């Protein structure tokens, strides 16, 4: 896809999230929006995947460590053709294939079960090491939150991944500056983020996580690394794309009223 099409897709995925949350009256909208452009770049340009053969062994893998942002991931899978778009409107309903947090056995196209924070880098490292053992060239991508960096297990995995020279592992840090209880600065103090990953032996980059061209370039830079795993610190905005969601952390998990739904859809370029 060209950049224009990718940008259009990222708006589509955001509209899908609004529609899902509005219709099913549950889910995490603004954490989905901060990673919408990264997920768009991965699923519609970067990753070697085949929706008609979702389990092919040498496919690239994706792990959404901040599993609560799954509505936008589900939207990407549906738009990529893993399952019908209408299935999105079963989010969090009994017997739905779309669980409140990602559950791989139920959802075609999902590579990992996630949800409790701090676990995704380890799971991704396991996948990256499996590729090495199986002599495959596939790559593994993980998205963690910035508040999530408070989980000690992230740093266990960070130390092990550089020790193992897992250069086929790339971790995006969704630095939207908020966690459930407020700004990350107020609550947990993860800064300086890039220095920490650098100190753990990772190749690091800092980019604008809503600029798809920067995301694509950063992925290329990561692929060029042969020894070190890559951390891409993405400056993002929680709720990016809808004016009333930006700077209002209640949208971490909140349902749209009819009026909010109309405004959000309009701002995201939807036709009502």
């Amino acid at each position, binding site marked *: 896809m060209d950049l224009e099409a990718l940008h259009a897709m990222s708006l589509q995925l955001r509209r899908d999230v609004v529609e899902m949350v509005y219709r099913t009256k549950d889910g995490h909208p603004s954490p989905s929006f901060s990673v919408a452009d990264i997920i768009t770049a991965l699923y519609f340009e970067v990753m070697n995947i085949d929706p008609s053969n979702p389990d092919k*062994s040498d496919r690239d*893998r994706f*792990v959404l460590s901040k599993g609560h942002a799954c509505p936008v991931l589900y939207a990407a899978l549906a738009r990529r053709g893993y399952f019908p778009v209408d299935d999105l409107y079963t989010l969090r309903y009994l017997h739905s294939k779309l669980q409140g947090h990602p*559950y*791989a*056995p139920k959802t075609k196209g999902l*590579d*990992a*079960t*996630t*949800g*409790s924070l701090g*676990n995704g*880098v*380890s*799971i*991704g*490292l*396991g*996948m*990256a*090491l*499996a*590729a090495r*053992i*199986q002599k495959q060239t596939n790559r593994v991508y993980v998205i963690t939150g910035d508040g999530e960096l408070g989980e*000690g*297990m992230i740093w*266990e*995995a960070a*130390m*092990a991944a550089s*020790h*193992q020279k897992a250069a086929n592992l790339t971790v995006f840090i969704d630095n939207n500056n908020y966690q459930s209880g407020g700004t990350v600065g107020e609550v947990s103090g993860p800064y300086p983020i890039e220095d920490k990953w650098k100190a753990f032996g990772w190749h690091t980059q800092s980019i604008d996580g809503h600029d798809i061209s920067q995301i694509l370039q950063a992925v290329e830079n990561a692929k060029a690394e042969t020894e070190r795993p890559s951390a891409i610190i993405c400056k993002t905005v929680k709720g990016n794309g809808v004016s009333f969601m930006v700077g209002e952390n209640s949208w971490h998990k909140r349902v749209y009223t009819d009026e909010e739904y109309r405004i959000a859809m309009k701002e995201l370029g939807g036709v009502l």
Partner: protein
Amino acid sequence: MSSVDSTRIGFRDALMHLAKERDDIVFVSTDSLKVVKGEPFLEAYPDRVIELGISEQNGVGVSSGLASSGLLPYICTYAGFLTMRACEQMRTFVSYPALKVRFVGANGGLHGGNREGVSHQFIEDVGILRTMPNFTILCPADGNQVYQAMLASADIEGPVYIRIGSGREEKVFPDGTPFPLGKVRTIVDEGNDVALFCHGFVTNRVIETAKRLKEEGIGAKVVEVATIKPLDRAGIAAILGKTGCAVTIEDHTIINGLGSAIAEVIAEGNPAYLVRLGLQDVYGESGFPDELLDAYGMSVEDIIEGAKKAIKHTKA
């Protein structure tokens, strides 16, 4: 055929055997390779060992990623560092998606942890894992049975937990005895007065108890329950139907281990009087293995007393 006299070596030798036959075996080490004298495995299969350093939660997460990619990871370290420190990782990222990760927990029980003391004596592992769907839980009695259990369980669906000890266990079964995956096994049958259910490194003392009871004219069955989950409920019910009373002997807290499992079978349609021996909701302390089992209510005399109590209540 392996002749091994320790559960740790039983694990290692079985892993060597499996790795020779198939190319999906991976040993995930959290600085635990030397715990099981794994150097020969590392030498033979250097690309099949993933050394992660001391990081058990990470180790289980990595194992989840390996299994989801089609490999068969064995992660072996001390039982509590898996089932307690990495409990949530075992639940949410392995048990819930039913991935084929094999967990081998060392220092099971007071016997396994012995002089190390409570931080390294794991008396809760089986109970914790019984609550997790999809798990198979195996408690072999000696080194050779660990070897056989490893081979028997390699291909089963979902996660498997195998409890091993300190590396200093007595032999119970002759070399080559198969592991009865999923079934209870009556290993002594002197009559129908009482059933003595047990697993693991207390088994020889339960066999000794049956001999002593026979000398007193009491006919006991010694029934090994080496597969705690899925439980052979029908096999247990059939034995309870004959004896009407039972004693459970486990080197584990009596809460949610073997004793609780048998109590559940009893309560759900197979009435029998039950005496549960094991850790009585207390922690242990440092000591020699047999000395600890004697001190914490698992001596031959304790089992004899328990059997007589169960029989007395049944006949009353």
